[in-house]
């Protein structure tokens, strides 16, 4: 079967109050992206965004999100993302901005990148720890990084939902 090519964007949702991240869900983010694309790129953008766009993964703890765009129009759609200033959830409007960290051709490359990125972040946190207990926690987390794969869907998945 011929594969329809996609691009995966790994984005970090930056908020002032980290607790508000917990209110987010896939739908709210997808709606925010569609809304901003329609505003910035009009009906054409909206049409391109209705094809094969989806929020593949969201971590409400870290604010990491995977967006899938069709390869032919990902640059156009990506160019609208910086104009997201807030995401509407059912409870409240969360002011935020998206920071794109990585663009990959498959979910797996993005996942690898994310693991490396998270490890780096943990390493940076380590010297800032106040006591031994916290340090131990982070060390454990670093060690566990290489095996937290269950959170992601299998890569083959995107081969199957070809239109």
């Amino acid at each position, binding site marked *: *079967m011929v594969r329809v090519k996609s691009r995966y964007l790994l984005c970090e949702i930056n908020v002032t109050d980290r607790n508000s991240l917990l209110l987010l869900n896939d739908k709210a983010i997808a709606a925010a992206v569609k809304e901003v694309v329609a505003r910035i790129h009009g009906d054409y953008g909206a*049409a*391109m965004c*209705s*094809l094969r766009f989806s929020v593949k993964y969201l971590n409400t703890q870290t604010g990491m999100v995977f967006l899938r765009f069709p390869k032919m129009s990902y640059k156009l759609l990506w160019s609208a993302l910086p104009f997201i200033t807030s995401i509407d959830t059912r409870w409240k409007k969360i002011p935020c901005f998206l920071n794109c960290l990585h663009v990959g051709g498959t979910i797996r490359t993005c996942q690898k990148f994310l693991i490396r990125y998270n490890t780096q972040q943990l390493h940076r946190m380590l010297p800032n720890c106040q006591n031994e207990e916290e340090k131990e926690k982070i060390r454990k987390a670093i060690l566990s990084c290489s095996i937290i794969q269950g959170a992601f869907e299998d890569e083959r998945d995107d081969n199957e939902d*070809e*239109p």
Partner: protein
Amino acid sequence: MSVFMDLNLTFSADRSNMQQIIDTAAYLGFSTVAVNYTFEPSIKKKETVPSPKPVEDLIDQLPIVQGRSRPIRVLNRLTLVLSELSHFRPNLTEYANFDLLAVQPTTEKLFHAACTQLEVDVISVAMTEKLPFFFKRAPVNVALERGLAFEVSYTAAIRDATMRRYTIANAVSLVQACKGKNVLVSSAAMKPQELRGPYDIINLCSLMGLSDEEAKRSVSSICRSLLLHAETRKAASGVISTKKSCGEKPQQQEAPISRNTGEGDSGEGCAPAAKRLKSQLTD
């Protein structure tokens, strides 16, 4: 490249409107147009297939194509909106009255059937709604091999913003599925203001992901091969061709596919047409 055609002008009983639409098409440089009759067959209501009006009843006078010295050619076409496979009756003689036969499948199953079995020329893709199915490569490839074309009509995109999104989105996924081959772009216009010129359409096609060359083909050569396809379909796979007796004076819609100049070559039969169709499609 051959002449420009618009193979979908919506039929209207209003004579002056029809005249205006065809006049505008000629003014925009279309050498051939097809008047489209849409029919939605159902089992319950015993409706009859519409019969095409002869050109004289449709309009008063055939306009001259802009920049040329010949009049526009007007054909008829029937579009069946299918919701049940059994509604398509392949042997219906009424179908034979039309120069072109199109179906608009509403479900994935019907789309598959249209691509692989139905004896039609055009598969029309709905532009006014989000597609209820995906275009699968396999049936699309079969359709391409059989010389069918997929139709995108742009009038809906002019009427309304939501429709515009559906039109672009559906057209883009169609173009991806058939890799830009055999896409037919037509207007489905009901008013003269809804028609657009061939070069405007070619430019618009770039939004749908067609290359310039493919876009040009979609309003010219593909239309031409479709007409040949229709001719051979009616002529039993291109082997046997039936000719009307010469008693009738040759009418517009019966004229064989004329080579561009449309002059002096009416002696051509249907036999080489089948051969030419193939070469046209593979080039």
